[in-house]
């Protein structure tokens, strides 16, 4: 059995789609291939992997309530490719958005279902994830936790010869448990979808989110953008103002 995972995020690194793809990949057996779709230059290489695929998993961000334009462009190429070669693999998706409600991915899911009907593929459903950006941050925080644990252990060995500093391990376990809790809904559905892929079954559309109350999520999201905008300078460049287009730009448009 061959499963092709396609990371459709246009970002080069640290994208949420790559995080969810990595989790899903862990639980799917058989032959596995991971591809990256960013530009039309990737099309031929990806198409070359699909001829003998049993399942394809698209991991992608929600853009303006739907599929990102570079993914639409790829699907336009993929549809005749599948039809002409009579390919019938199962298509699954992992869609994530920055808002907290996973259900905001519904139009995207429907677009993929319609694509499958036109391409002659088997639409097998997917997971729509809310709070994708923040969940992606949890993996970075987990990395920081591990680094802190290692540092504490090294300091403990140097100072007291103790290879197992209890307080550091307790702190690490508490933080890791909290980060795991935030990801519980995602893990539950991604593991479920992996089982469906292994069995070649339809998974259906499922929606989940980061395990945080909405008001806390919004507060964290706002703080996140304040910090980012401070470091990137947008805060000092008319951050929230009604910017007018340049006359020169309008004339060329």
């Amino acid at each position, binding site marked *: 059995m061959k499963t092709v995972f396609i990371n459709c*995020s*246009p*970002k080069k690194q640290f*994208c949420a789609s790559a995080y969810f793809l990595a989790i899903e990949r862990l639980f799917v057996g058989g032959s596995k291939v991971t591809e990256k779709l960013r530009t039309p230059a990737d099309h031929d290489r990806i198409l070359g992997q699909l001829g003998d695929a049993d399942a394809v998993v698209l991991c992608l*961000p929600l*853009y*303006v*309530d*739907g*599929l*990102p*334009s*570079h993914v*639409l*462009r790829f*699907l*336009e190429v993929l549809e005749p490719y599948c039809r002409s070669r009579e390919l019938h693999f199962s298509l699954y998706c992992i869609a994530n958005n920055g*808002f*907290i*409600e996973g*259900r*905001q991915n*519904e*139009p995207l899911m*429907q*677009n*993929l279902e*319609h*694509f499958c*009907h*036109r391409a002659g593929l088997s639409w097998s459903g997917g997971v729509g994830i809310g709070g994708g950006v923040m969940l992606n941050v949890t993996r970075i925080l987990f990395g920081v936790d591990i680094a802190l644990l290692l540092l504490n252990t090294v300091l403990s060995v140097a100072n007291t010869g103790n290879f197992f500093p209890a307080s550091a391990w307790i702190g690490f376990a508490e933080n890791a448990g909290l980060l795991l809790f935030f990801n519980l809904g995602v893990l539950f559905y991604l593991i479920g979808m992996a089982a469906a892929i292994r069995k070649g079954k339809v998974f259906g559309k499922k929606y989940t989110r980061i395990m945080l109350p*909405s008001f806390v*999520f*919004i507060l964290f*999201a*706002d703080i996140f*953008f304040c910090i*980012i*905008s401070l470091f*990137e*300078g*947008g805060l000092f*460049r*008319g*951050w*929230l*103002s*009604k*910017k*007018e*287009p*340049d006359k020169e*730009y*309008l004339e*060329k*448009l």
Partner: protein
Amino acid sequence: MKILIHDLDQQYEAALKPHADLVINADGKYAPCQGCFGCWSKHPAECFMKDRLQQICRVMGQADELVIITKNLYGSYSAPVKNVLDRSIGTSTPFSTYRGKQMHHTLRYGKHDLWKTIVYGDITEEEKETFRLLAERNAINDGFERSEVLFVNDISEVEALL
């Protein structure tokens, strides 16, 4: 201000111009959004990519009425039209709020009036339903009071709907 975005051939441009204050030809000769959020956090309402859509947020923000003429693609806008929409998220700010009982971003340019979509090309009943849902969600997301989706069998029917 009435803004019209379309993916029709150049030959229709002259017929469309009298019906809007600004007509944007979505010809696909621009880059897709890179998802960097720079139009929120680095250079507000402006894209780092210096192409035709660099200041599209600032233009779209002026729209009282937005009319989109697009070919159907799986119940979605065509890729060139969706590209324009993807590059326009700077019409909102990075701050979050609730609209339509769901989380969205606050509006940089305030409320707008009508988000009107005219769809041409082969389309199934199921795709029509998805298109209505998509346009309705876009309208809520971008702060438009009303959303309208019209389907035409032939491009020649478009002008009468503007």
